[in-house]
């Protein structure tokens, strides 16, 4: 009897948790900019990608009513504090795409140690710039899809290198490999007949060489100045990470669309 009771208790303890996991939501379309079918499709994709990289993807949209005069970053932070999303635990690993329809601003953010490392401000900015055009065209489905795809790939690439770096492109690597091969073999062919092994010091007699006279006179100076360009491409500001009202830090990138 006692055993049955414990088993039942355990079951009750597990069920709500697993149910909550299964029901964990990825799309919060508060601004109602997605159709029913779009929402479903994104939800499904998000669940897939979330499982694969063990991170919770969230698409959050807001309009005037939901924002309540809050800034998009503040709104996103409050959402995270209240809803406590996360793949591993509440307030856990999360990657969010927040769309502010009132001010037409977008904010990408990542919570948790690993996501903040792999999706730092710089990388989030790259993703944001990649999806801004779709947002401008009001193609929110495509933007969400691209957000998942990019973030998914970036989560694989070591933070020490820019994932979009030309160094990681296969054609560039082939080109460099071919160049190195050509230079080495070219040098081998060139040196086939023997190298010249004398240099300027071979016959130089330092005892009978000298600097008879020298001067280095300062004549004038010129100063030119150039304005440092601000890297605020695609209209919005660069933004960056920060801390939520609840004291949880995140990496981020902000921009208009």
């Amino acid at each position: 009897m006692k055993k049955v009771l414990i088993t039942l208790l355990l079951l009750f303890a597990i069920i709500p948790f697993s149910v909550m996991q299964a029901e964990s939501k990825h799309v919060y379309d508060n601004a109602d900019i997605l159709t029913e079918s779009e929402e479903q499709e994104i939800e499904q994709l998000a669940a897939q990608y979330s499982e694969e990289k063990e991170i919770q993807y969230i698409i959050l949209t807001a309009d005037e009513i939901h924002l309540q005069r809050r800034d998009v970053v503040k709104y996103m932070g409050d959402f995270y504090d209240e809803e406590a999303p996360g793949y591993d635990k509440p307030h856990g690993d999360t990657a969010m795409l927040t769309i502010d329809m009132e001010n037409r601003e977008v904010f990408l953010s990542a919570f948790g140690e690993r996501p903040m490392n792999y999706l730092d401000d710089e990388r989030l900015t790259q993703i944001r710039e990649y999806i801004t055009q779709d947002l401008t065209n009001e193609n929110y489905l495509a933007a969400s899809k691209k957000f998942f795809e990019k973030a998914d790939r970036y989560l694989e690439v070591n933070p020490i290198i820019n994932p979009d770096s030309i160094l990681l492109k296969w054609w560039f690597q082939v080109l460099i490999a071919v160049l190195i091969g050509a230079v080495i073999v070219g040098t081998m062919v060139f040196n086939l007949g023997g190298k010249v092994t004398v240099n300027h010091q071979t016959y130089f007699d330092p005892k009978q060489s000298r600097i008879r006279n020298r001067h280095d006179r300062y004549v004038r100076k010129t100063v030119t100045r150039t304005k440092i360009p601000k890297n605020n491409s695609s209209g919005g500001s660069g933004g960056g990470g920060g801390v939520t009202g609840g004291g949880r830090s995140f990496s981020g990138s902000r921009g208009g669309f």
Partner: protein
Amino acid sequence: MILHYKCPNCGSDMKYDSESGNLSCSSCGNNEHIDSYDEIHIEKTFEEEEAKEYQCENCGAVVITDADTTATSCSFCRAPVVLADRLSGDLAPARVIPFTISKEEAMAAFKKWCKNGRLTPKGFMTADRVKSVTGIYVPFWMYDLDNDIEVKATGTKVRTYTRGDYRYTETHYYDVYRSLEARYVKVPVDASEKMDDELMDKLEPYNYSELKDFKTPYLAGYLAEKYNYTDEQLFGRVKSKIQSFVDTYIKSTISGYTSVTYQQRDIRTKPVNSDYVLLPVWMVYYDFDKKEHTFAMNGQTGKIVGKPPVSYKKVALWFSSISASVYAIFLIITLILGGGY
């Protein structure tokens, strides 16, 4: 005048031995130091001036030489012969570096070099078709050159810094002046018409500590040539040879600048001294694929120069394997970083 070096012991002909640095007799094994070798044993025969035919004192055969030869061996009895009249007066060499590498060592070194030929055809690597290996004392002019240099230039030092929203580039201009004296000593230039200049230049450097005062016995057993060009005729060549050295020297005295633009560069090169010297070279003639390939080996240091044939198959193989392995390394790094395409 034709010289034979007779062995004081047995009377055979002696020749220079690169290993001991002495005259040695192949019949009785006697060694004679060049400095102490008694001139009584030098057999001299006088011939008509500028003759091209000499008579071997040993066997009486006619020694036919070409006009530049100063040492050879009798084609009939192989006795080493030195043609002294072509080594005297204006034609007397001041100094000589004797051979330190024997014919056998030269051949062995050449075979080894061929075996290491990474781009040469397989058939070439065995070195089994070497036609001849000949030790030649090649005539060189050795110049001591004094360079009087005057340089005027503008040097700039560039500093960049940021203040507020601006990046400032500050360029300081300097008036640079140098008056220099650069001395180059014992710069060799080959004075033989027959020898390829590029080949001879690549044979350098020689070790000058073994530079000896010239004595005819060093030539016994080798071929030797007299110069075809005088030191004056070759002055232009030696000047162009040291040009890059002088440029490097000038640059070394102007340091600390971001950029240097020359306004004026006067280089006056004056010959201080020029010596006629004989330097040892092993010439290797190799028949391969119906073509004769010529190689030269520094008879003192063993450095080998000369263009061997190239196997395009091997070039392609090297190229593709280097490129493929470099790409493989890139691929591995990419995979480690997680940046798979």
